[in-house]
C-alpha cells in the first residue's frame, strides 16, 4: 500500500471508529447485498494504556487505561481490521468488514460515498452543534476599577 493509501485508510478507519454503533449498523443493513466474510480474529476486548504528556506537551506518562475491542476479517481478497474504543463486539466486526471492503477498488468509491461520507458528515454536524453550545458560553470579563473615594 502506498502513502496515499495509508492516509485514506487511516481516514476511513477513524470514521468507522468514531461513528455511533447505530450508524454503522444502519449502513450495514442498507447494503444491497451483505457480502460473505470469515473472522480471522474474533472480536476481543482488551485494554489500551493511555499516555498523556506532562504540562500538556512535555514528557509522556501513563495516565490510565481504556477498553478497546478489535476484530479482523477476511473478505473477498482483503483483510479488514478494526480497533474500536469500548466493548461493542458487533461494532468492531462491522468496522472490520467495511475496512476490508474499502480496500477493494471495486467497492471503494461507492462505499466512500454511501457509508463513510454520510458518517463523517454526521460526526462533523455533532462537532459543530457542540462547538456552538460551547461558544454560547464565551465570556468576556471586565476588570472593575476599585472605587477610590
Amino acid at each position, binding site marked *: 500500500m502506498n502513502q496515499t493509501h495509508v492516509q485514506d485508510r487511516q481516514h476511513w478507519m477513524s470514521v468507522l471508529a468514531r461513528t455511533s454503533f447505530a450508524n454503522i449498523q444502519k449502513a450495514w443493513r442498507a447494503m444491497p447485498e451483505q457480502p460473505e466474510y470469515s473472522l480471522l480474529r474474533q472480536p476481543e476486548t482488551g485494554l489500551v494504556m493511555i*499516555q498523556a*504528556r506532562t504540562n*500538556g506537551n512535555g*514528557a509522556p506518562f501513563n495516565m490510565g487505561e481504556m477498553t478497546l475491542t478489535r476484530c479482523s476479517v477476511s473478505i473477498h481478497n482483503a483483510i479488514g481490521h478494526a480497533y474500536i474504543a469500548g466493548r461493542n463486539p458487533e461494532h468492531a466486526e462491522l468496522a472490520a468488514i467495511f475496512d476490508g471492503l474499502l480496500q477493494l477498488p471495486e467497492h471503494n468509491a461507492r462505499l466512500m460515498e454511501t457509508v463513510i461520507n454520510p458518517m463523517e458528515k454526521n460526526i462533523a454536524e455533532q462537532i459543530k452543534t457542540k462547538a*456552538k453550545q460551547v461558544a454560547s458560553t464565551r465570556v468576556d470579563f471586565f476588570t472593575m476599577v476599585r472605587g477610590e473615594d
Partner: protein
Amino acid sequence: MYVAVKGGEKAIANAHQYLAAERRGDTALPELTVSQIKEQMRLAVDRVMTEGSLYDPELAALALKQARGDSIEAIFLLRAYRTTLPRFYTSAPINTSVMQITRRISAAFKDMPGGQMLGPTFDYTHRLLDFSLADENTKNNVTPPTCNEDVPATCDETPRILDFLQNDELVEGVGSAESHQVGDITREPLELPAGRDIRLQKLTRADEGFVLAMGYSTQRGFKNSGGHPFAGEIRTGDVSIEVTPEELGFPVTIGSITVTESEIVSIYDGSEETPPQFSRGYGITFGSGERKAISMALVDRALRCRELQEDIIAPAQDEEFVLMHSDNIEATGFVEHLKLPHHVDFQSELDILRRLRSNWAKCKAKREEIERNTQKEQKIRQSGTPEIKGAA
C-alpha cells in the same frame, strides 16, 4: 494478622441476597438503569473512571449501580475488572492542544487567545437547592444554548496560554517531550524516589479527597516556597486516541475520550542556576474532574521540591507520605480489613493482655508493699527519734 475462617456460608449468602434487595430499594419505584446513571450521574461516573484508572463510562456506571453509589466500592470493582483484561496497546501520547473543547478558562489571563468558554459549570450558580428537580411531574428537558458564531466542523488546535509566556521565559519550559522509558505502576512496584512520570500516574488515580486536602494544605502555607498559585489554564474536552497495531504498522484512531487538564503556575524564587520564574504543576483526569485536576496540579508542584532544590518542610512535599497514602483502594483495603474476622489474633491479644494485667497487678502489689514497708520504717524512724531525744 488476618487468619482465614471457614463456615458461615448460609449467613454470607443471605447477607448478599439482603444486599441485592437493599440495592434495589422500594420495588414500587422504577429500577435505576445503567444508562440513566451514565447520563445523569456523569460526574460520579467520571470520578470512578479516573480513580478506577479505566475509561469506560458504561462499566463505571454499572459499578456505581452495583456499589449502591459508593464511589470507592465502585472504583474497587473497576480496578478488579481491569485485571481480567489483557493489555493490547499503549496509545500515542494524547494531544490536548487539539481538543474538542467543552470548557476552557484561565484565571490568570482575561483576554486569552481563543477566548474563555465557561461550558456546563457549577461556577456562578447560587448553590440554592432547586426544588423543581424534585417535582416528578415537571419535565426537566432543557435545550442546550446555542449561538450564531461560525464554528469549524473539525477540532482545530487551541493554543495553550502558558506557551505564550514560555516564549518570554517568564514561565518554565514544559521539559523535553522525549522519554526513553515511561514508568508504569501497574507493572512495577512503586519505588522512591519516584520520577515525575510515576508521580503523575499515581496522582491521576489518587483519591480526590486526599489530593484535595493535600493541595489545600499547600495553599494554607504548608510548603517551602512559591507564591500564590494561578490557574494558567483549565480545559475540558474530547481528545482522539491513537494506537499503532503491529499488523498495520501505522497509527489509527480508535475513538475519543473526555479529559480535564489543569495547569497551575506559581512564582518560584529561583536557584543558583535558575532565575526566578513561574513554575508549573500539572493535573489531568478522565471526564470532567476539575476539582481533582486543580488539586493534582498543586500537589505535583509541591512534589517537585527536590528537583527545584526546595527544603522539604511540609506533608504535601513528602513524596513517601503523599504517594503511599493517596490510593483509596490500597488505603481502604488496609483500613477496612479491620472489620474481617480476627478471632485468633484477638484471642492471642487477650492472652497477652491477661498476662500483662496479672504482671501489672503483681508489680503493683509489690510496689505497694515496698512503699508500705518504707513508710513503716520511716514511721519507726520518726517515732524513734523523739525516743532517742527523750532518752538524751
